[in-house]
């Protein structure tokens, strides 16, 4: 089973990863990725917006695609929406598998697709001003690898 969540308030990545690990004792390897709000460059806050009818259903579809492509014991996808401060977690992906290669690849694939295909819109606050962030060319190159 996959655990896919869209959260509108903060979460504790260490506690989530600990619970995920405990739930999959049969997995020989667990690979996780944590994305957090980057500190510096004058960033005061980051806001992610989502659209209820699309965002979570598409995250669940992505999890299904990941499960269809790699042999996993478990998959965790947690994504924040709302306003976050520097150093706060945005996204946590963890894949549990018998062998590490499947876990690495599944987490990598899930992150590339969350970044470039999920229904989120991001804006950043610097110098008291909010500014929408356009997708980066790198995100499209990342997804083309798959």
């Amino acid at each position: 089973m996959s655990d896919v969540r869209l959260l509108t308030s903060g979460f504790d990545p260490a506690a989530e990863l600990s619970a995920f690990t405990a739930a999959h004792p049969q997995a020989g390897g667990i690979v996780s990725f944590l994305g957090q709000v980057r500190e510096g460059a004058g960033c005061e806050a980051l806001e992610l917006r989502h659209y209820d009818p699309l965002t979570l259903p598409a995250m669940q579809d992505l999890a299904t695609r990941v499960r269809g492509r790699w042999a996993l014991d478990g998959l965790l996808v947690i994504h924040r929406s709302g306003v976050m401060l520097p150093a706060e977690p945005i996204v946590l992906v963890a894949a549990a598998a018998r062998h590490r290669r499947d876990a690495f690849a599944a987490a990598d694939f899930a992150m590339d697709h969350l970044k470039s295909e999920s229904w989120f819109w991001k804006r950043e606050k610097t110098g008291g001003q909010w500014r929408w962030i356009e997708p980066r060319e790198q995100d499209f190159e990342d997804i083309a690898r798959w």
Partner: protein
Amino acid sequence: MSAKLVFLGRLEELAGTDGISVDVPLGWAALLAHLEEHYTPDLVETVAGVRVKVALNGALIAEKGGVVLAEGDELAFLPPVSGG
């Protein structure tokens, strides 16, 4: 009789609101004309452009030019995403 338009991401800034109500029935051309009358040319040009996708009642529409809004519909304008 009305339907709802939802503006996501920076479209909200261009429209000055996250959503509006429109009278129905309303086809795509009439919808653009309505936006042109009440909002900025920038908004009309952007929502009509290839980079903005649309979802009708939560389902993505391949050909937005064919959309006709009916009572209770929700049409969302989706600019390029930037998650993670």
